[in-house]
């Protein structure tokens, strides 16, 4: 029966070519191989997000009057609603963490070099999209902390030169954070960003399958010197490894969901006093803390504007790293990019911890 179905599909989709490709595909094995799995774990967490997000959609109501109550209903009345919501929240955070780990491992292994520039670019854009998911999803429970953090977060967009005010109004759907903002963020979270992510992720995965895994410079040098680099078959060896890591991630998620449940807090109240310790999610904390430290005016320019422009330039530089690092493209070490990468990583870690305790 299965043979017949496969034969039927093969006749129409030419599956034999794909299956032959997968059967022949191999993954190099070396001391840096473990970093290959980071992308797989990130992909698994994306799947968890989609699955739990769809389940939450069944009960969530995106309006200022009902959002908080609907989340309260999900975690207290819906069968396993608490588990779905907690896994969605924790998975979102682990997803961004793993995406950062994946990005920095790719950066330090110079895996972006020719011909994988587009894989890198789609990967960086995917990270930005995931951060967008985090920012828009944070407001959806419509609780006090999220409300005021979104107020601060969207307010920062006002520092962008020329289009700042327009961006604030565009993000908020008005002058202030209101029910209109919630509806807008909901639309961005469940329709716009998923559509963008589907395209980017599709291209990213296609390129990985088409081009295979990149060899680190040191391993590539050995290979060029004539050394035979051992390889594992993609199927089943690499896939089984991936699945094993997915199970580990699932266990971590389940334990976090039960022992550190995501608090719902108090319902948002625009007239309430701003609670102490308002801060964004941890993945924006480093930037938030740096903005707080920049003086109000630097060389006659607004400090906050300077910070926002600086972050935008840094993000653009990150996207075009493959085109900046010509040395890596030629197979030579590139200490400037390595140094900048290490500096960026240290900045993120130190300022995130600083921001956490400073708040």
């Amino acid at each position: 029966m299965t043979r017949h179905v496969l034969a039927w599909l093969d006749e129409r989709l030419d599956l034999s070519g794909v299956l032959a490709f997968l059967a022949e595909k191999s993954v190099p094995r070396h001391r840096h191989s473990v970093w290959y799995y980071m992308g797989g774990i990130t992909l698994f967490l994306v799947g968890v997000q989609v699955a739990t997000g769809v389940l939450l959609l069944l009960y969530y109501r995106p309006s200022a009057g009902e959002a908080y109550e609907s989340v309260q209903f999900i975690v207290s009345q819906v069968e396993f609603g608490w588990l779905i919501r907690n896994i969605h929240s924790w998975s979102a955070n682990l997803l961004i963490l793993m995406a950062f780990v994946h990005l920095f491992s790719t950066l330090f292994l110079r895996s972006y070099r020719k011909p994988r520039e587009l894989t890198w670019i789609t990967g960086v854009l995917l990270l930005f999209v995931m951060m967008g998911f985090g920012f828009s999803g944070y407001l959806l429970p419509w609780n006090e902390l999220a409300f005021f953090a979104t107020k601060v977060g969207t307010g920062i967009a006002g520092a962008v030169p020329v289009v700042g005010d327009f961006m604030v109004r565009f993000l908020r759907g008005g002058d202030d954070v209101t029910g209109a903002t919630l509806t807008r963020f909901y639309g961005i979270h469940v329709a716009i960003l998923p559509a963008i992510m589907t395209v980017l992720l599709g291209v990213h995965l296609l390129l990985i399958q088409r081009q295979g895994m990149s060899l680190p410079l040191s391993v590539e040098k050995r290979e060029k010197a004539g050394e035979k680099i051992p390889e594992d078959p993609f199927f089943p060896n690499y896939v089984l490894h991936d699945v094993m890591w997915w199970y580990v991630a699932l266990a971590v998620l389940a334990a976090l969901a039960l022992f550190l449940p995501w608090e719902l807090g108090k319902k948002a109240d625009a007239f309430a006093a701003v609670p102490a310790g308002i801060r964004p999610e941890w993945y924006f904390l480093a930037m938030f803390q740096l903005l707080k430290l920049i003086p109000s005016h630097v060389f006659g320019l607004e400090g906050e504007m300077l910070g926002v422009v600086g972050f935008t330039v840094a993000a653009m530089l990150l996207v075009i790293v493959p085109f900046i690092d010509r040395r890596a493209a030629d197979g030579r070490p590139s200490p400037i990019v390595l140094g900048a990468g290490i500096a960026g990583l240290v900045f993120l870690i130190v300022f995130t911890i600083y921001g956490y305790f400073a708040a």
Partner: protein
Amino acid sequence: MATSPRNGRLALLLLTVALLVGAATASAQPAAVTACENCHRDQRDTRLATPAHDFAGSDVHRDRGFTCVDCHGGNPNEPDKVKAKAPATGFKGKPAGQQVIAVCSRCHSDGALMRKFAPKQRIDQAAEYATSVHGQRLAKGDTNVATCISCHGAHGVRLVTDAKAPVYVLNVATTCSRCHSDGERMKSYKLPDGSPLPTDQRAKYERSVHHAAMVKRNDLSAPTCNDCHGNHGAAPPGVGAIANVCGTCHTVFATKFALSTHSQIFDRSCVECHSNHEIAQPTDALLGTDKAALCVTCHSDGDNGLKAAAAMRGEIEKLKAAIGHSQELLAAAENAGMEMGDQQLALREAGNQLTLARTEMHAFDPKPVNDVLQAGLAITAKVDADGEEALHEVSYRRTGLAVSLGAILLVVIALRLKIRSLG
């Protein structure tokens, strides 16, 4: 040159006409500096200079165009002080006693005039004052008592809403106590029973729950001296009026108390249990049969009053304990990650029932108190059941997690072995 009586009467008539015309054309424009102020400001004697400085500084009357002559008479345009204060100018000097009341009420009891400056302001202050202890004593010739200027000041008079005014709500106790805490000034006054008039009212008030509400919680609606005693008609509330005075704010308590037997027995109603100036934060300890309770001061073992007190206190303590237990249960469930928002809300309602029982208690009838408390206990019982269920659910979830993690571990081990077998 001596002034003939006829010329004097003419001058007085002209002055009166001038004053009336001035008042009729009154505007909110501040008054110009007069010759009186110019002269008084430079006097070395502070008794003469201070009024001019105070009046020039900030004065509600000056801001509305009134000058020295409106109260003191005289000619404001005459630089020569003798001529300025000549009898023909209607100069009155420094009003004292009944003269103060007359000077102030000349405008403040004039409805037509007051409508131009403060249309909402009452014009019965002088009439009220005449009914006050201050007014009655003044009428008998006691010039030691307070008149308008004792509380409002004479020069530099500020609106009652001005935080610097001596009659601003936060300053009333200080203003009253300037006289009432002065033992020397008060020593000649007696209470109706012949005992000396106390001078510790302010000290007691500052230890009261009302004062704490006003200065610690910034509740400007909390009562100060004039809220119970009246202001212009200031007098101690009569024996039968105390419940009405307290009931102005504590309406429900007053209604319940009116239903009780105590309302017919207590001479000083609320004050019998709560005192007057030094009203402490009431606690449940006031009710009951132990030594700290007030009931035992009148009731004795075995009488119906003490039985009722014991029953009401016992039921109140039962609900308090039940609420405490429910709070602990909910805290444990919430710490374990359970959402207990609805139960917290229900528990607040149980707290409301406790408050309601404490209110009902003022009728001193155990039946309605018990009814309310039973409603509260029914809520806590339901909250407890939900709390227990939540903790049971936590235990169930942890077991589920342990089983799931065990299964995941087995799969991971199996995958690892399989990968190893693949070489």
